[in-house]
């Protein structure tokens, strides 16, 4: 019986989670907007218009960091994950380490194929 009651509490007890009021929601929106605007400033302004920075590894890193920052704000605040129990946060995010591993593996593989495919000619067999 108490088990049943606990689950009812899980359904109805969301107001106690704390977290986001309307002000908070708009604050996160403006953070996301600012990060996106920064990306556009870099891409359209610094790269295209003024030609201060060239496309390359440095810029890619900047873009990826900004993207991850945006992803953090969406997941943590909009998806409310920051305000869940810490064991749940760990449960949902620890598997993502495999993605990091996969990125490393496949980029190394791609880099290898670049050499391997180009360095030896294909001979006709007839």
């Amino acid at each position, binding site marked *: 019986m108490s088990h049943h009651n606990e689950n009812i509490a899980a359904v109805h007890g969301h107001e106690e989670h704390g977290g986001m009021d309307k002000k908070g929601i708009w604050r996160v*929106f403006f953070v*996301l907007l600012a990060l996106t605007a920064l990306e556009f400033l870099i891409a359209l302004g610094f790269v295209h218009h003024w030609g201060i920075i060239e496309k390359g590894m440095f810029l890619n890193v900047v873009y990826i960091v900004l993207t991850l920052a945006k992803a953090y704000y969406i997941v943590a605040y909009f998806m409310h994950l920051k305000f869940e129990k810490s064991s749940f946060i760990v449960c949902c995010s620890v598997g993502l380490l495999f993605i990091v591993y*996969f990125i490393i593996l496949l*980029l190394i*593989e791609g880099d290898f194929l670049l050499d391997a495919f180009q360095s030896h000619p294909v001979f006709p067999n007839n």
Partner: protein
Amino acid sequence: MSTTTVSQLDKVKDGPWNGGRSPWNLEYGKIMMWFFLVSDTFTFSAFLIMYGAQKFAQPTWIDADKVFQSIPGIAESGQPLVFVGIMTFILIMSSVTMVLAVDAGHRNKKNEVVKWMLWTILGGLCFLGCQAIEWTHLHHQGFWFGRNPATGLEGEAVAEALAPYFTKDIAYTAALQFANMFFTITGFHGFHVSIGVLLNIIVLCKTLNNTFQKSGSYLMVEKVGLYWHFVDLVWVFVFTFFYLI
């Protein structure tokens, strides 16, 4: 002495993981939505990582700024990133209206939930419309699954047909793989958006039907909200890897 030990052993454990309660204090369906989204993360990651691997494996790659540079109805060329910027803004905006719908649901305000859900659905449809325009534009240029503008051409004509899309060296395979990846990944994302719009419409109907008002909980709004934010999240990555880098 021994009696105290026994009574300590007999004491009922009441930690979050000792049973009899919901350790995460989350409703079942919401946990399952999270687990689904984690698995979907792997699907999208696999797609995008494959895109990266292809890019690393090709001696040259297409320049996104030269492929996407039109604003439908305003500029035919020379405006990279502007149209996709509008799309990104629409999707972030619809994410915000979704949070506002969830927030209204917490306060049991039916009319507010309806209002914000309608805005969210509108945003989703606008995004899909923009994507349809983008696809049509690219298709007219000659890009499609298994096809690029130089398909069917021979010799120097290939380089000539592809020259407008490259800054570095020109390669048929790079253009082809770009087209395949672009339509597959944005297609899969667009499919997710379509499903999201559909789910939002269902939840809107249920709200109008007073289903949540009667059950006393707008949790279903929260669950489709999670899905909708995930779609927005994926777009953030698609935008970076296809349009910026």
